[in-house]
C-alpha cells in the first residue's frame, strides 16, 4: 500500500535537473500532514538486481515508506577502483557502489523501480569528502542524501575536519544549486552510534542544520538516535524540535529518529522489542520519519525480507501508539516540548559555538580545536578526547567528564577518572541495551497471546 500522496516527479519549473523520484522533503511533509510516520530502511546491495528488488519491496510494503540506497564502504572512502573490482569479481560489498556503477545505471535502475511519481529515495553514505557521491546522485536524478561536515567525518574517517568542512560546503552548494528543494539530513544525532549524551547529539544535529542552510539548502532534517532511556529520549527530541523551531524556522524541516544505533540485541524477539520501542518514541514525540533496524543487525547485513519485516513492524507499533502522548505515559508535557535539561545543555553548546565565528564551518572547526565540542570515545585526531560518558543507574546517559565543553562541571562524586576502564566493563557498558532487551526476550516463553500496543520493556520503564 502506498500512502504518500502523489507529487509531481519533475518538481517546480525552476528545477535545474529533472528528478527521477518524488521530492524527498515534500514526501515526508505530506505524510506528516496526514499524521503518518514515514518509515525507512538502511538498505544497500552491491548489484543492480538486488538493489532494485529492495527498492521495489520497500515501495510495496504495507507502510508509509521512503526508499534508501545505502552505499558501500569503498565508495565511502573514495576507493572506487576497489568497488569496481569487487563488482567484477562478484564479491560481497556492504552497500551499493553508486559511483562505480555510474549515473546511467543508477538512473535506469530507479526508472525500473517504476515509482517516480510517489516514491522518494535517499542516498545514505558516510563520506567526509562527498562531492563525487553528490554529483553521482544528482546525475542519477536523486534529490536527497544525508551527512554533515562533522557527523560524516569524525565517526567515518581519518580525514582532517577542515577538509571535510570545505568539501561539505561545496557539496551542499552543488545540491542546492542543482535541484530546487533538494533535501539534506544531518547525521549529527548519531555520533559513533552509542554512549554520546543527548545534549551533544542535539547540538551537533542543529549546528549541521545551520551549516546546511548557510550553504543554500532549504529542506533539511535533523536526526536523533534512540538512546538508553525512554524519558531522556523524549526530552532530547523535544529539545531538538524546539531548537529547530528557533534556529531553522524559515526552512522546510523535520525530525528523523534512528532506531538504536549501538550494539544491538542478538535475539529476534529482543531486536523487535527495541524496534517497537523506537516506533512508540517516534509516535509520542511527533517525529515525522524513522529509520529502522532489523533482527539481523547484530549479525550481518539485513536482507530485503528482514527490512520489510522491520518496516511493517515499526509502522504497526507507531499506529498503535498514535493516541499516546507524553502525558499519558506519565511524562511532563512541558518537558516533552523542550523545557528540559537536554535543551539547556544543547543550547549552551550551540550558543558557545555560534559565538566563535559568524561562519558556522569556521565556528565548528574552532569549537573542536578548543574542545567546546568533544565526542566521547572518538579516536579522530581532531577530537579533543577529554570527555567521557557512561550509563547512570537510572539508565540515562550522563557525562563523566565534560573536558573543555562549556557545561557545568560535574560534581566530584561521579568522577572516578583516575581508575582505568577495564575491557570487560567497557563491553558491559556497550551492551547495556542489548542485554536489557535480550534478557527480557529470553524470560518470555513463546506464547500466542496477541501483541499489546505497549511493548513490554517500555511498560517496565
Amino acid at each position, binding site marked *: 500500500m502506498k500512502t504518500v500522496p502523489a507529487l509531481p516527479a519533475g518538481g517546480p519549473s525552476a528545477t535545474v535537473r529533472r528528478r527521477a523520484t518524488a521530492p524527498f522533503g515534500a514526501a515526508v511533509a505530506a505524510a506528516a500532514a496526514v499524521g503518518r510516520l514515514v518509515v525507512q530502511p538502511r538498505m544497500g546491495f552491491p548489484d543492480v538486481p538486488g538493489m532494485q528488488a529492495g527498492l521495489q519491496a520497500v515501495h510495496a510494503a504495507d507502510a508509509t515508506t521512503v526508499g534508501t540506497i545505502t552505499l558501500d564502504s569503498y565508495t565511502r572512502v573514495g576507493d572506487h577502483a576497489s568497488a569496481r573490482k569487487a563488482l567484477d569479481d562478484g564479491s560481497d560489498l556492504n552497500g551499493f557502489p553508486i559511483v562505480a556503477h555510474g549515473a546511467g545505471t543508477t538512473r535506469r535502475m530507479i526508472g525500473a523501480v517504476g515509482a517516480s511519481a510517489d516514491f522518494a529515495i535517499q542516498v545514505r553514505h558516510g563520506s567526509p569528502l562527498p562531492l563525487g557521491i553528490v554529483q553521482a546522485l544528482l546525475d542519477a536524478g536523486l534529490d536527497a542524501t544525508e551527512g554533515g561536515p562533522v557527523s560524516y567525518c569524525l565517526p567515518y574517517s581519518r580525514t582532517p575536519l577542515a577538509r571535510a568542512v570545505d568539501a561539505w560546503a561545496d557539496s551542499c552548494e552543488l545540491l542546492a544549486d542543482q535541484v530546487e528543494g533538494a533535501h539534506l539530513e544531518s547525521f549529527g544525532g548519531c555520533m559513533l552510534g552509542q554512549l554520546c549524551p543527548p545534549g551533544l547529539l542535539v547540538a551537533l544535529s542543529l549546528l549541521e542544520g545551520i551549516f546546511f542552510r548557510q550553504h543554500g539548502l532549504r529542506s533539511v532534517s535533523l536526526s536523533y538516535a534512540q538512546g538508553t532511556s525512554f524519558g531522556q529520549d523524549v526530552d532530547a527530541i523535544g529539545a531538538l524540535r524546539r531548537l529547530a523551531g528557533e534556529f531553522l524556522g524559515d526552512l522546510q524541516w523535520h525530525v528523523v529518529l534512528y532506531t538504536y544505533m549501538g550494539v544491538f540485541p542478538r535475539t529476534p524477539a529482543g531486536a523487535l522489542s527495541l524496534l517497537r520501542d523506537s516506533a512508540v518514541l517516534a509516535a509520542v514525540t511527533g517525529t515525522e520519519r524513522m529509520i529502522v533496524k532489523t533482527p539481523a543487525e547484530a549479525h550481518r547485513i539485513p536482507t530485503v525480507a528482514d527490512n520489510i519485516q522491520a518496516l511493517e513492524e515499526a509502522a504497526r507499533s507507531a499506529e498503535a501508539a498514535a493516541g499516546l502522548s507524553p502525558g499519558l505515559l506519565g511524562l511532563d508535557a512541558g518537558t516533552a516540548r523542550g523545557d528540559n535539561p537536554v535543551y539547556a545543555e544543547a543550547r549552551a553548546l550551540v550558543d558557545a559555538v555560534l559565538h566563535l565565528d559568524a561562519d558556522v564551518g569556521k565556528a565548528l572547526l574552532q569549537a573542536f580545536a578548543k574542545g567546546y565540542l568533544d565526542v566521547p570515545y572518538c579516536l579522530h585526531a581532531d577530537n579533543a578526547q577529554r570527555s567521557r560518558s557512561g550509563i547512570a543507574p537510572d539508565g540515562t546517559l550522563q557525562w563523566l567528564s565534560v573536558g573543555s565543553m562549556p557545561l557545568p562541571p560535574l560534581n566530584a562524586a561521579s*568522577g572516578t577518572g583516575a581508575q582505568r576502564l577495564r575491557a570487560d566493563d567497557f563491553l558491559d557498558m556497550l551492551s547495556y541495551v542489548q542485554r536489557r532487551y535480550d534478557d527480557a526476550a529470553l524470560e518470555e516463553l513463546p506464547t500466542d497471546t496477541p501483541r499489546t500496543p505497549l511493548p513490554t520493556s517500555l511498560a517496565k520503564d
Partner: protein
Amino acid sequence: MYPPAPTGDALPDARQGGGQRVLVSSVSSDSHTWNLVFLQLMLEELGHEVINIGSCVPDDLLIAECRRTSPDMVVISSVNGHGHLDGRRLIARLRAEPDLSALPVVIGGKLGTRGAQNRAHGPELIAAGFDAVFEDTAGVAPFRRYLEDAARPVLESAGPARPALAATGDPR
C-alpha cells in the same frame, strides 16, 4: 557503574615484563572504532604495550607504521563486512615487503557480510598470509589463548613457525 576513560596511557616497559608491543589497526575501508578500543583495553590488561592507529588505515600507512614502531605482533580488526577483501589485499602487500614478511599478523572481527557463513573466509585469509583468523565474538577466547602461546619463547622450535590457526569458536 561509572567507568572512567578507556584509553589510558600505554603501560610503560611492557616488553620487559614479558609483554609484547602490539600494533592494533583497522583496514582501509572500515571506520568502526569501538572494536579497536576494546582490543586495546584487553591487550593492555594482559600486559602488552598497544599502539592503536585507528580506522580507515590505508595499506601504505600500515606498512609505514610497522616500520616506525617495530611491533612484535600486528592485530587487524574489521567488522564492516569488507575484512576478507581488504585483509587479503593488505596481507599480500605486507608479505611482499622483505622486512615484514615474517612479522606475526592476525585478523579478526566480522570479516564478511553473511553472519555465520563468514567462517568460510578463514582458510583463504590464512592462505593469503595471516598467522591466525578470529571470527567475531567467538574469536576472543581463542585469541587470548593464541596470545599466551605467542608469549612463550619459540626459539627452540625447529620446524616452521607456529601453525596457522583459523579460530571459528569451535574448540580445537
